[in-house]
């Protein structure tokens, strides 16, 4: 299989690199990760440093993106905010993926009652308007970056579970799976060594598309004041501060929102690019897109 895999990779890369938009998206994603990692070195000011002499200053040479109500530098806050957004995106998608893969493979491999129960759970979770569910949980828990990551992950695994189940349903009938079962390989070995690696492509797409969705959700919650709390700067809570002074300080609204837009757009381009490069095997990943509509 090894040779097949590396040639598959080469084939994938050839398809992916032909898609200019996806490549551009990948470059921006890379840049954003670097910016987030280097934020402490790059930020011109301390993001929580108050300056009463510079309250709500418009963009200038010393403060490229202006200052907020407390005289804090908006550029530095947006830079630091990117760390929170990326962290929330990656961790919550990680949580969702682990849950989705475990439940999806259990459902797809076992079939029968297990499958039925798990898929009804998926149906149930999908009936809840996600924002209402998130808010209900937040009424009880103190919102912190960890709670936010956890609840976004715990309410976002259903798409992955469905994809993985669908892959398993077809893969478990394939010869190489039946052979390895017939020579006595244990269930865990069959699932994790033989089936799962072959089912990972759509999961990768779902993950790439899940990160921007999680970032949007987090910034929405923070915007409502129920997400990551000050003193942490996040794009959502900068916008929340900015909404009160929208009429006099447009820069506090324009720039953090642009940061969200650019980030989400580039991840989506990369995700769609990966999917198109893996097509036609991946036609069913469209289901992931369906679930993503309207976040």
């Amino acid at each position, binding site marked *: 299989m090894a040779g097949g895999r590396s040639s598959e990779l080469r084939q994938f890369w050839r398809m992916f690199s032909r898609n200019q938009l996806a490549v551009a998206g990948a470059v921006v994603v890379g840049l954003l990760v670097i910016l987030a990692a280097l934020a402490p070195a790059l930020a011109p000011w301390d993001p929580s440093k108050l300056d009463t002499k510079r309250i709500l200053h418009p963009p200038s040479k010393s403060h490229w993106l202006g200052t907020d109500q407390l005289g804090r530098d908006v550029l530095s806050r947006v830079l630091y905010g990117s760390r929170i957004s990326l962290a929330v995106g990656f961790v919550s998608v990680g949580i969702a993926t682990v849950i989705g893969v475990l439940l999806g493979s259990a459902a797809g491999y076992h079939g029968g009652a297990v499958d039925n129960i798990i898929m009804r759970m998926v149906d149930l979770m999908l009936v809840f*308007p996600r924002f209402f569910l998130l808010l209900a949980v937040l009424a009880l828990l103190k919102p912190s970056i960890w709670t936010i990551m956890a609840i976004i992950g715990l309410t976002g695994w259903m798409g992955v579970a469905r994809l993985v189940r669908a892959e398993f349903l077809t893969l478990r009938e394939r010869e190489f799976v039946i052979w390895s079962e017939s020579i006595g390989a244990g269930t865990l070995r069959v699932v994790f060594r033989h089936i799962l690696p072959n089912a990972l492509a759509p999961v990768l797409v779902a993950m790439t598309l899940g990160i921007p969705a999680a970032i949007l959700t987090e910034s929405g919650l923070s915007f409502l004041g129920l997400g990551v709390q000050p003193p942490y700067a996040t794009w959502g809570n900068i916008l929340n501060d900015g*909404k009160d002074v929208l009429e006099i300080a447009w820069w506090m*609204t324009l720039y953090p929102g642009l940061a969200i837009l650019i980030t989400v757009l580039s991840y989506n381009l990369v995700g769609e690019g990966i999917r198109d490069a893996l097509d036609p095997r991946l036609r069913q990943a469209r289901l992931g897109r369906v679930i993503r509509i309207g976040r």
Partner: protein
Amino acid sequence: MLLFALRRLLLAIPLLIGITFVSFLVISLAPGGPLDFLTPEDPNASAEVKQKLIQEFGLDQPLHVQYGRWLARVVRLDFGRTFLPDGKPVLVKIRERLPITLLLNVIEMLIILGLAVPIGVLSATRQYSLYDKITTIFVFVGFATPDFWLALLLMFLFGVQLGWLPISGLRSLNWEYLPFWKQQWDVVGHLILPLAVATFGGLAGFSRYMRQSMLEVIRQDYIQTARAKGLPEPTVVGKHALRNALLPVVTILGLSLPSLIGGSVIIETIFAIPGMGQLMVQSVFSRDYPVVMGNLVIVSALTLVANLIADIAYGLVDPRIRLGGRRRRR
């Protein structure tokens, strides 16, 4: 057909029970229960309030007993009373606000469908044309634009800078004194910005999906046949292809309802529209648990009903579904 509808209905019942179970679980999973939150920080949490809470939730009982009791009341649509000073029953509060959210979402959905279908069909029939490329860009940007940010920008532009449109509430302060037609116009004006924002994100998704669905149908043999027998292209596209391409979109509409309704949280909060979403946010801030739970149950149950209607509608328009028993999802 009746049998099909009945089967769908039966399948929805366990989901409905599931909704109440999850909603109940959410509240009881809080470390220390809901009491823990009121007591240390909230100065209003007098012994009286605490007592009321213990009674309200029967917190001294084991969990399954609590759930049973709560469920028995919820079945009669009794969600208790709000913790707020006015002490209204939760159901009354919800009844005040539900029509507004429903109205907004229905209008939103009609606009989305009305625009997404032609946009999607046109980009599919002119795949890779300039028009197709522009709509594709629009779709990607639409997906990536945070709705609350778009709302703020539009408020700034049309409300503050240009002063064309009102930016908050559903009516002007002097609404009562306006003549009848001006009153209607006033409400419409208040709805324009919220609806524009609400429609934007969903429109991107649906027009994309419509395009995809149309592209698939156009490749089918029966479309070739229709062309081959000399039907004019508008008939082929508008009649033969569109009808079939619309089918999966009905399902998608049902599936994406939860997220459309969820979107009303942010929109209602920003534009100060007194609907379910705004009620939810307010109750979360004031930790008004009975309202939070009631809200969650009602909104999800309504979503379930809407899903059911979409399901049955799909069966109605596509006999394969109700006869085959299995639903074609993609």
